[in-house]
């Protein structure tokens, strides 16, 4: 139980986020967004804006610095006349105050030649194609056995289509950059991101610089949930503006502009077919996913990937198809792939439980996979069954009456549901430096990012362990691209990757220490590239089980979640205090996904209509009741020196399915389209 190292700074308002670095002579940026969903920019009239007192410059395609092309087309900011989606940045005003910039931005007149836009995802869209790879580097399609024949021959069959809407990450801190160019040509970015090393290398590429000429400082980051995992157009725009004006430029993307420019989870349409025997044992698993991407960047959400390893079945097919629409680019949102994919798979498992009459916990136990079904690799550890059993005992599952729609208290229907969770346990190469200082303390450096996960604290705990010293003797330095190179905080691989490098650096330091520490200190550096590459082959995944209770109001159709429990198997938990909060936070986002969150695409305008926190509802304090997260002991020697699996994402995986399954148990109605809104529920009651 370790207190968060920077906790006191955060409760006193002393923690500095990107916007808040005190700099002299700052100018402010306000961006202009495209008002058509597709077309060509004919002209940008900046005269009125430039005439306003306090306006320093107006940037648009005509006068913006030329950038080097990079893979992510979103970063080719103001480089083309093409408009790829409504809301794309097409111009920017830089002014003495944020108010002036915002007002002047409204006076920049952009003339377009609009074209018909295609913005709605459909399962029968003629533009659907198989991407070369899906996110995470997985193949788009896999097949084993004869899934169609096996499905057709199965005694019990589920064949259902599930949909999830576009969802927006909505970290509470907007994507923010303060950019400045130093006299020697160095670009300095105070930036809100999930990995300063990645921003450094990408921005260096974009501006044709050496990585050493870009410095990225991200000491405190107000959440990201994937949306800050890759640099977004805002950071490029701020850097351009700083170059053109010769001043430090601040740009916090207004919440309403985040909808188009900082990423979101693609909507999905997922057909799942499960073929099983009367005892519920699976013989065929078929999971086919349709999702969208944009015209400027290919992002393929890997929603069918968990179906490749969750359950044993001799016949299996998984398939991803995407279509390029005239929409903002989807990107990572907490557990991309697993989150929508496990909503579908775990809902289908519940449907199978109902059809076979096998208890949903028992059904999952029966279908537990002894080894990775597709690769045949052994699991480094797999404790799904332990999570299900532990959860069932704690939640009081055994007393559950399986009949749907029979528990009524006044005007409320009650029900409970379960769903499994999984997330890959990855480790990526990186570097770290450990230093022994002459005063007996240690400094450990790695360009990690603490986006709220508690990374700083976890790494200090890991370092103190490795150095066999007190936590109080370890000073952790993170959040700066000048520190040893590190992967982004993403894919739940941060702590594992950074921690491995930290342990190796600390071990190397201990070897070097003998007796007195000289005044200049002793330093050791580690790189884990070889270690990570030469690891033994295992299927490495965390597992979990969610148990949810719901209360459905018969008159309003509102679904409440009075009680929810998550049980996880994620290796060694490094800091229980922070870990519980991570799990619970993920589950809460899962409640949001199940009941509230949906960005609605307007076909006529090609825009998400509800693009602010007034209309896009994330769970508030009043929406959330009792949520608890616990974990089962798990010793896994095949992961990393800490024996830990990442925990940032698994909390949301399966959470929405547990709630949807509970709603079925309460009402007898199956909700296959998220979110489960009062309107949808009322229609079924």
């Amino acid at each position, binding site marked *: 139980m370790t*207190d*968060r190292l*920077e*906790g*006191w*700074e*955060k*409760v*006193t*308002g*002393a*923690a500095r*986020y990107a*916007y*808040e670095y*005190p700099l002299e002579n700052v100018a402010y940026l306000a961006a202009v967004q495209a008002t058509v969903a597709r077309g060509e920019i004919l002209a940008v009239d900046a005269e009125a804006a430039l005439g306003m007192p306090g306006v320093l410059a107006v940037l648009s395609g005509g006068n913006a610095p030329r950038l080097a092309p990079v893979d992510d087309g979103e970063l080719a900011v103001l480089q083309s006349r093409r408009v790829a989606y409504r809301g794309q940045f097409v111009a920017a005003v830089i002014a003495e*105050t*944020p*108010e002036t910039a915002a007002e002047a931005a409204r006076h920049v007149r952009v003339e377009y030649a609009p074209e018909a836009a295609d913005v709605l995802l459909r399962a029968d869209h003629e533009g659907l194609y198989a991407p070369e790879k899906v996110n995470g580097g997985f193949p788009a399609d896999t097949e084993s056995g004869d899934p169609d024949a096996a499905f057709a021959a199965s005694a019990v069959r589920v064949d259902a289509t599930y949909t999830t809407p576009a969802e927006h990450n*909505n*970290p*509470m*801190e*907007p994507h923010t950059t303060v950019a400045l160019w130093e006299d020697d040509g160095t670009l300095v970015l105070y930036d809100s991101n999930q990995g300063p090393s990645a921003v450094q290398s990408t921005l260096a590429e974009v501006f044709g610089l050496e990585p050493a000429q870009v410095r990225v400082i991200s000491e*405190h*980051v*107000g*959440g990201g*949930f994937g949306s800050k995992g890759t640099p977004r157009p805002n950071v490029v725009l701020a850097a351009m503006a700083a170059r053109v004006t010769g001043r430090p430029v601040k740009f*916090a993307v*207004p*919440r*309403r502009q985040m909808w188009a420019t900082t990423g979101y989870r693609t909507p999905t349409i997922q057909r799942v077919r499960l073929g099983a025997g009367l005892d519920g044992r699976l013989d065929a698993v078929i999971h086919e996913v349709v999702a969208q991407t944009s015209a400027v960047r290919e992002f393929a959400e890997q929603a069918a990937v968990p179906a490749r390893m969750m359950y044993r079945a001799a016949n299996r097919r998984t398939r991803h198809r995407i279509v390029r629409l005239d929409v903002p680019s989807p990107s990572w949102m907490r557990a991309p792939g697993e989150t929508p994919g496990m909503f579908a798979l775990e809902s289908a498992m519940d449907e199978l439980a109902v059809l076979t009459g096998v208890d949903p916990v028992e059904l999952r136990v029966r279908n537990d996979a002894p080894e990775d079904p597709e690769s045949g690799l052994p699991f480094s550890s797999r404790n799904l069954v332990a999570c299900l059993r532990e959860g069932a005992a704690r939640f009081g599952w055994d007393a559950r009456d399986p009949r749907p729609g029979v528990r009524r208290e006044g005007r409320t229907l009650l029900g409970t549901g379960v769903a499994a969770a999984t997330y890959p346990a990855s480790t990526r190469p990186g570097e770290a430096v450990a230093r022994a200082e002459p005063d007996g303390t240690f400094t450990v450096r790695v360009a990690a990012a603490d*986006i*709220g*996960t*508690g990374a700083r604290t976890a790494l200090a705990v890991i370092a103190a362990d490795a150095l066999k010293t007190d936590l109080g003797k370890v000073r952790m330095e993170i959040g700066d691209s000048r520190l040893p190179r590190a992967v982004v905080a993403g894919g739940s691989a941060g702590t594992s990757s950074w921690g491995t490098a930290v342990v190796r650096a600390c071990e190397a330091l201990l070897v070097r220490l003998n007796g007195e520490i000289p005044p200049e200190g002793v330093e050791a550096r580690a790189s884990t590239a070889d270690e990570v590459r030469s690891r033994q082959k295992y299927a490495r995944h965390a597992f979990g089980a969610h148990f949810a209770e719901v209360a459905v109001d018969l008159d309003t159709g509102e679904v409440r979640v009075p009680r929810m429990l998550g049980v996880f198997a994620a290796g060694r938990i490094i800091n229980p*205090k*922070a870990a519980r*909060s*991570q799990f*619970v*936070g993920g*589950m*809460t*986002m899962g409640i949001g996904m199940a009941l509230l969150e949906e960005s609605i695409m307007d076909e006529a305008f090609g825009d998400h209509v509800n693009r*602010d*926190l*007034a209309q896009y509802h*994330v*769970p*508030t*304090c*009043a*929406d*959330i*009741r*009792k*949520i*608890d997260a616990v974990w089962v002991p798990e010793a896994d020697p095949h992961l990393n020196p800490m024996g830990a699996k990442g925990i940032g994402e698994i909390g949301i995986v399966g959470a929405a399915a547990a709630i949807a399954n509970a709603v079925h148990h309460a009402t007898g109605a199956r909700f296959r389209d998220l979110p489960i809104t009062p309107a949808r529920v009322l229609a079924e009651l």
Partner: protein
Amino acid sequence: MPRIRVEVDGSSYEDDVEPRLLLVHYLRDRLGKVGTPVGCDTTNCGACTVLMDGLSVKSCSVLAVQADGREVTTVEGLRAGHPMQRAFHEEHALQCGYCTPGMIMASIDLLRENADPSEDEIRDGLEGNLCRCTGYQNIVRAVRRAATEMRRPASEEVTS
């Protein structure tokens, strides 16, 4: 440009401000009081919550000119080691910390109205402050803990 006089965290300021300037930007960009963050443009998130004459306001929806002649307290102006800050720290009622200053200020105002709120009263009372990280469990615990501490007679109060 109108001239305003505002007490912020115990100091007096006198400034010429544009009528359209929001209080939160006055605090952050003019006074350098950046401990109060901005999370939205629509008065929904509560990240910018401060106390004005002792009552909580979302400072992104108050004009600086409306604060003329008033007393503003931000998270930076709390008596060092305010029980609410200690409780948030000890109960780990935060992760990224971006919602935290506003959450603390709103919680202080909540206890002013109701010194001993139930769990449900806290949940309802803080519904105007969004946290995307924590799932609120520890926030509710922290407010309960601070409430207990703040109800103790002054003589018993732990001084730290």
